[in-house]
């Protein structure tokens, strides 16, 4: 049970950190200053959430583990982030849509966790949910703007949807540690899909051709796409090259 709780906490932490790391590459490169600041703020929230979760995981793990050793010294196979978080930034449309799909998922997940009997997870979820509400609204507005914008922006969003949709199935498939904790992510799918679908339809996009597409799985149990190795190489470079470095 303790192991399941630790693994689950790492799954939450890793997903937030990896998406944060992905988004952070936009810092200084956003399409306009206000949106550069927006995506960077969202990144800060995600990394902040991951810190709270890693601190808890370190406590559960015991020994010499700290939030930093968990983030900087684990390899790909030990990372449990969902595959969606590690998808490449692509263009602005892909970054926006990835954020939207993920934030809508986090909103359902954290809402469920606020009622969790583990009081630390419930507290982190309650705090994070306030932030996620902003992320959903911001990314949802951008999905509308791009989907219902110009022919070019519409095409880009359609491509992003085709690229990302096959990575959403995993979010609702229970990993062993979720089963052991009695958590059922499948129960989150109906609300998530309703929210996502309503925004996509308003943005003049259809899910019809993707309804029965193949869904990739693996991230939640440590089997990742090629992308994660490159992400960790960037993320962990300093601690790998100069072990224990501090400033």
């Amino acid at each position, binding site marked *: 049970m303790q192991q399941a709780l630790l693994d689950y906490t790492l799954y939450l932490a890793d997903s937030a950190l990896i998406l944060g790391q992905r988004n952070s590459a936009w810092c200084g490169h956003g399409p306009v200053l206000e949106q550069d600041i927006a995506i960077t703020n969202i990144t800060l929230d995600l990394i*902040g959430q991951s810190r709270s979760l890693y601190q808890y995981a370190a406590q559960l793990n015991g020994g010499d583990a700290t939030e930093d050793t968990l983030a900087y010294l684990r390899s790909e196979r030990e990372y449990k982030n969902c595959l969606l978080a590690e998808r490449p930034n692509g263009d602005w449309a892909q970054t926006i849509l990835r954020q939207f799909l993920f934030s809508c998922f986090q909103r359902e997940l954290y809402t469920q966790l606020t009622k969790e009997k583990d009081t630390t997870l419930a507290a982190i979820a309650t705090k994070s949910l306030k932030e996620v509400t902003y992320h959903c609204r911001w990314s949802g507005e951008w999905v509308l703007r791009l989907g219902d914008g110009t022919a070019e922006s519409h095409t880009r969003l359609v491509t992003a949807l085709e690229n990302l949709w096959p990575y959403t199935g995993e979010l609702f498939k229970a990993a062993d540690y979720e089963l052991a904790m009695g958590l059922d992510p499948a129960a989150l799918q109906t609300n998530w899909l309703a929210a996502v679908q309503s925004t996509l339809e308003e943005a003049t996009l259809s899910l019809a051709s993707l309804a029965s597409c193949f869904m990739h799985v693996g991230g939640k149990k440590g089997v990742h796409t090629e992308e994660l190795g490159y992400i960790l190489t960037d993320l962990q470079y300093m601690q790998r090259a100069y072990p224990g470095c501090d400033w």
Partner: protein
Amino acid sequence: MNATLLHTEATAACWKLMDQICDPEVPVLSLNDLGIVRAIAVKSPPSEAGIIDITITATYSGCPAMDWIANTIKIELRAMGYQSITVNHAISPAWTTDWMSEQGKEKLKEYGIAPPEKRFSIPTDGIPCPQCKSEHTRLLSEFGSTSCKALLQCQDCGEPFDYFKCH
């Protein structure tokens, strides 16, 4: 002086200190104005062993000011004679702008930041301009220069300004 009185006075002095330490990102607000100091427990006053526990809570999960604030509290308490200082970070209950003092909201306005208001729980057009008081304002972005602020522009005086978001 009896022990209880010593503790009461030492605790009061610590709360007073929290009026003097300011948020590095919004330097017009003290920690008490922000409402992030949740508890001060003097276990032993500085005239004796000098042991103290402080509990603070982050505004936003990723607020980069928290580490600076925790360190500054430690430095200042050490200067007051405390030997053993613990700063705990509480996650629950989650911080809310309801904990911001009325005085803090006034200070924000004078500083040029629109204070949080319940009627604007979601940032929107029309939040009064802190410079000219006009309500003819436009929301530029729900995200601003720090996690806690949104960015607006006044349509009358032309000044861009921050709004401290309800949270």
